[in-house]
């Protein structure tokens, strides 16, 4: 416990002091992707009805029984790899958890 605190204190004091030198303003470019891909449009309520072309379209008859194409993903998963055969020893889903702020 004490040892932990000592290690921590030494590291922390140095880190924070030094980081002052380069503390940027909030407007500075940050590493990583910061674009709001898709998010800006997220979740809009509206009072218009869906385009009339949907009226007689497939959405009225979503087939829950399944069709061939339902079983086949056609997106980038094929290019990225990692289909089931690549996961002969798949990691359990429980290992993947999302932590969130309270």
């Amino acid at each position: 416990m004490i040892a932990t605190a000592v290690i921590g204190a030494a590291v922390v004091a140095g880190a924070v002091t030094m980081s002052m030198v380069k503390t940027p303003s909030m407007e500075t470019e940050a590493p990583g992707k910061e674009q709001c891909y898709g998010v800006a449009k997220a979740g809009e309520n509206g009072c218009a009805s869906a385009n009339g072309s949907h009226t007689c379209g497939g959405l009225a008859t979503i087939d829950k029984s399944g069709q061939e194409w339902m079983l086949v993903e056609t997106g980038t998963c094929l290019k990225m790899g990692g289909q089931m055969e690549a996961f002969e020893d798949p990691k359990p889903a429980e290992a993947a958890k999302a932590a969130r702020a309270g």
Partner: protein
Amino acid sequence: MSLSANPETSALELPELQLQELQRRFRASVLGEDDGPVLPLVAAARGPVAARIAVYRNTVQASLTEVLAVAFPVTRRVVGEQFFANLAGRFATETPPRLPQLSAYGGDFAAFIEREDVGRRLPYLADVARLEWARGEAYFAADAKPLDAARLAALSPAEMESTVFKWHPATRLTTSAFPIYRIWEVNQLDVADIPRVDMGLAQSVLVSRAGSRLVTRAVEPADAAFVRATAAGENLAEAASLALAVDAAFDLQRALGDHFINGTYQDWET
């Protein structure tokens, strides 16, 4: 309290319970279960009345699918538009919104994917959806003043080590056994050629808001441990120790610099 199937006798005075029953039947119809019970209660001036109900059904289902497509663009790109539309459509009818704010719709989508066949075939997909949901939550989260580094630097070492960093309301950490940042990155619209991805890499992704920018970045396991420790209420010294236990080479100074830039933490009250 069941309604007569004959509109002429059902209707002179629909009691209130019957309005509730009508709304129940209408819901079943709109969510694609069964038109039968509502048909006797509604009429079309011409043409089949089922086509009229379909307008409402299509509006509800098409707009929910669209909401999910916008909230989960990478998930959609990974499986393809048609597959996604079917997946989203089934989710929408099984798990319709509970809140009248569509920005809050889709929080259960990742868990739904996990239960589906596709979650087994593409075991990373549910975590990719979790990451996308985290970004949406961050976008709409409350505002807060970011942590003031100068104020922190003015503390004595002892005060500093006992300081507890509080997450900004927009901060979200998604930890996966799969390379979800890499998957997210190569599926952005500006990446034309999708490369093969090493699915053996585990990644943690930190989403935060810096000013008006939404930041999505992969963090090292030690930094993820640090961020997770602060969320659990550990003070700075304890969080740093936990990070060092994960990786003795953890560079706290650099990690904190990145957290300041990216708004991971909010200022504390005095």
